[in-house]
C-alpha cells in the first residue's frame, strides 16, 4: 500500500480510458472492469485514510523520486511534485470515494446502452480521479490541472443528454463559468510562481509575507473557488448543472463542489494561513455563506422542477459550509474549531442527503419520464422504497433530529452564534424554510392521486440509494463516533496542523 495515494488517482484514470476499449469487446467486461476499478479506488482511498488518521501525520508521496518517501527538497528548495494527504485530505478522500462508489453502482443500472452508457461511466471515473487528485495534491499547478480535469468531466456529464435541449445549454453555461474560474486560479498560480519561483503549497506557504501580489493572488483564488463552490451571487450555474445532469453524475458533482470548499480551506488556512490570517477574509466567507443559505432556500421554494428544487437545496447546504469555514477563519480556535468541525461534518452529511435526493429524482425520471412537480403525484404507491428514501433524505437535508443534518447544523448554529447572532438566526430561519421546501416536494411527488403507475427501479439503483439512506441514519445516531475519528482530526489538521503540514513536506 506504499503507492496508495497515487494509485487512488491513477486507477480511475486508467479505468476511464480503458472502459470504452473493453466496451468494444463485451459490455459485461466493461461493467466488471468499472466495478473492479471502483473497488480498487475505494481500497486505496481507505488505506490512505487509515494510515494518515492512524499515524496522525500527513502522508507525503514524492513523484519522480527514487522512492516515494524520498525528500521533496534539495538544498531547501522543492524540486518534485508531491501528494500531501493530511487528516483533512484523507476525510475528503473518503467523501469522494463514497460519492464515486455510489454513483458508479447506480450508474451501472441507471444508464442505458443506447444513450451512451460507456461514455457516462468513463466520464464519471474521470471526474472521480480529478476530485481525488484535487484533494490529495500538495502542488499548486497540479491543483489547477485536477481542477480542470473535474471541470471538463463535469461539463461533459451535465450535457450528457445531448438529444434534449436543456442539458447542452446547462453544460455550456457551466463550462463558461468553470473556464473563467479556472483562469482566475491559473493567474493566481502564475502570480505566486512569478513572486517565489515555486509551486509547492508548503514551500509557498513558508515564503508568503502578505505582499500586494500575494494578496491579489489570494483574491483571485477566492473569487474562482467561491464561484466553483456555488456561493451567491455566482451560484446560478449550479441549479442549471445539477438540474440537468444524470442522477449518477449529480451525486459526484456534489462531491466536486465540496472539493472547491476544501480548496478554499486549504488556501485560507494552509497556503495563506501564516501572514494573511485575517478575520476580514473569514467575515467575507461567512457573509457570502449566509446570503447563499437564504437566497438558495427562497429560490427552492418557488421551483416546479424537482431536480432544480433539490439543486437549490444543495446550494443552500454549500452556504452552511461556507458559513462554518468563515466563522473558523474569524476565530481560528475555540468556537472556530467547533464551526470547522460542523462544516467538515456537514460535507459528508450533505453528500449523503443531497446525493440520496438526486438519486431518487433520477429514479423518478427513469420511471415516469419527468420530474415536473405539476405532473407528478401519488408515486408513493408504486415507488415505495424511493418514497421512503426521499423522505429520509429530505428530513436530513432540512436538519430534522435525530438525522445527520441536525448534528452538523447544531455545531454550525452554536459557533456562528458566538461570531454573530444574526448569521446564526438567518441560518436557522433558512432551515425552517427548507423544511417547507422538502415537505412540498414530497407531497407533490409521492402523495395524492397517482396519474399513472410507475415501474419499480432496478435493484442496483435501490442498493445505491439504500447505502446513502443507511449512512444518513448511522451518521445521525452516532455523530460522536465520526466526529472523534474522522472530523475532529481533519479540523485539527487544518487549524493547528499547519506547522506539521509544512514540516512533513519540507523537513525540520
Amino acid at each position, binding site marked *: 500500500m506504499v503507492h496508495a495515494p497515487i494509485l487512488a488517482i491513477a486507477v480511475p484514470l486508467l479505468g476511464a480510458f480503458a472502459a470504452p476499449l473493453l466496451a468494444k469487446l463485451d459490455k459485461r467486461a466493461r461493467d466488471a472492469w468499472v466495478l473492479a476499478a471502483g473497488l480498487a479506488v475505494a481500497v486505496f482511498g481507505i488505506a490512505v485514510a487509515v494510515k494518515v488518521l492512524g499515524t496522525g501525520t500527513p502522508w507525503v508521496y514524492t513523484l519522480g523520486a527514487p522512492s516515494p518517501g524520498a525528500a521533496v527538497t534539495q538544498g531547501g528548495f522543492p524540486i518534485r511534485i508531491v501528494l500531501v494527504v493530511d487528516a483533512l485530505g484523507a476525510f475528503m478522500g473518503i467523501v469522494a470515494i463514497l460519492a464515486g462508489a455510489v454513483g458508479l453502482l447506480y450508474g451501472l443500472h441507471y444508464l442505458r446502452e443506447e444513450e451512451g452508457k460507456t461514455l457516462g461511466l468513463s466520464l464519471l471515473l474521470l471526474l472521480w480521479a480529478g476530485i481525488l487528485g484535487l484533494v490529495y495534491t500538495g502542488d499548486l499547478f497540479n491543483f489547477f490541472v485536477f481542477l480542470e480535469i473535474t471541470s471538463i468531466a463535469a461539463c461533459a456529464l451535465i450535457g450528457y443528454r445531448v438529444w434534449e435541449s436543456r442539458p447542452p445549454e446547462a453544460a*455550456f*453555461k457551466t463550462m*463558461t*463559468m468553470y473556464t*473563467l*474560474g479556472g483562469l*482566475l486560479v491559473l493567474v493566481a498560480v502564475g502570480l505566486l510562481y512569478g513572486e517565489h519561483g515555486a509551486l509547492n503549497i508548503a514551500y509557498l506557504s513558508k515564503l508568503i509575507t502578505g505582499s*500586494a501580489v500575494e*494578496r491579489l493572488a*489570494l*483574491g*483571485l483564488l*477566492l*473569487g*474562482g473557488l467561491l*464561484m466553483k463552490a456555488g456561493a451567491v*451571487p*455566482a451560484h*446560478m*450555474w449550479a441549479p442549471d448543472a445539477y438540474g440537468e445532469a444524470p442522477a449518477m453524475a449529480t451525486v459526484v458533482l456534489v462531491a466536486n463542489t465540496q472539493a472547491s470548499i476544501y480548496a478554499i480551506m486549504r488556501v485560507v488556512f494552509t497556503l495563506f494561513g501564516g501572514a*494573511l490570517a*485575517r478575520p*476580514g*477574509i473569514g*467575515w*467575507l466567507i461567512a457573509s457570502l455563506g449566509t446570503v447563499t443559505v437564504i437566497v438558495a432556500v*427562497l*429560490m427552492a*421554494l*418557488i421551483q416546479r422542477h424537482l431536480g432544480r428544487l433539490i439543486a437549490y437545496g444543495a446550494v443552500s447546504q454549500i452556504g452552511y459550509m461556507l458559513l462554518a469555514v468563515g466563522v473558523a477563519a474569524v476565530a481560528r480556535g*475555540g*468556537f472556530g474549531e*467547533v464551526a470547522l468541525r460542523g462544516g467538515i461534518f456537514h460535507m459528508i452529511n450533505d453528500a449523503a442527503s443531497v446525493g440520496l435526493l438526486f438519486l431518487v429524482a433520477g429514479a423518478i425520471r427513469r420511471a415516469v419520464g419527468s420530474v415536473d*412537480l*405539476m405532473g407528478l*403525484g401519488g408515486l408513493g404507491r408504486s415507488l415505495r422504497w424511493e418514497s421512503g428514501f426521499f423522505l429520509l433524505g429530505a428530513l436530513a437535508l432540512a436538519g430534522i*433530529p*435525530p438525522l445527520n443534518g*441536525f448534528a452538523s447544523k*447544531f*455545531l454550525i448554529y*452554536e*459557533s456562528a452564534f*458566538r461570531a454573530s447572532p444574526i448569521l446564526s438566526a438567518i441560518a436557522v430561519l433558512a432551515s425552517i424554510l427548507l423544511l*417547507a421546501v422538502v*415537505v*412540498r*416536494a*414530497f*407531497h*407533490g411527488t409521492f*402523495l*395524492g*392521486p397517482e396519474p399513472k403507475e410507475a415501474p419499480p427501479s432496478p435493484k442496483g439503483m435501490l442498493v445505491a440509494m439504500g447505502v446513502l439512506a443507511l449512512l444518513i441514519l448511522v451518521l*445521525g*445516531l*452516532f*455523530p*460522536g463516533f465520526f*466526529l472523534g475519528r474522522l472530523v475532529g482530526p481533519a479540523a485539527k489538521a487544518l487549524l493547528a496542523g499547519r506547522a506539521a503540514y509544512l514540516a512533513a513536506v519540507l523537513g525540520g
Partner: protein
Amino acid sequence: MRIGSGEGFWGPIVWAILALGIAALGFAVWLQGRRTYKRGTEQEEPFLSGEKLPPGAPGIGGTHLYWGFTEALKPFLSRLAAFHTGFVGDYVGWLIVILVVAIMVVILT
C-alpha cells in the same frame, strides 16, 4: 454518543428514545378512541369546507402546499427570481462582482 459545542450538547440516542416513548404514548391514547371509522364510506372522501367535489376534480397538488409562504413573500420572491435571468452573460457579471469584492477585502484587511 453525545457531541458538544462548548455551549451545549446533542445526544441523538436519548432524543430517539424520548421520541419513541412519546410516539408510544400517542399510540396508547389513540387506542382509547372511539372506533367509528368505516372503510369504503364517505368518511374516506376529502373534506373541503363541506363542498361536494365533482368526479375527476383536481386535488391540491404539491405546488399548492405552503401557498401562504410563497404568497406572503411574493414581492420579494419575484424580484429574486428575476435576478436569476438564466443568461450566461449575467452569470459572468456576478462572478466579476464576487471577484472584485474578494480582492478588495483581501487588500483592505
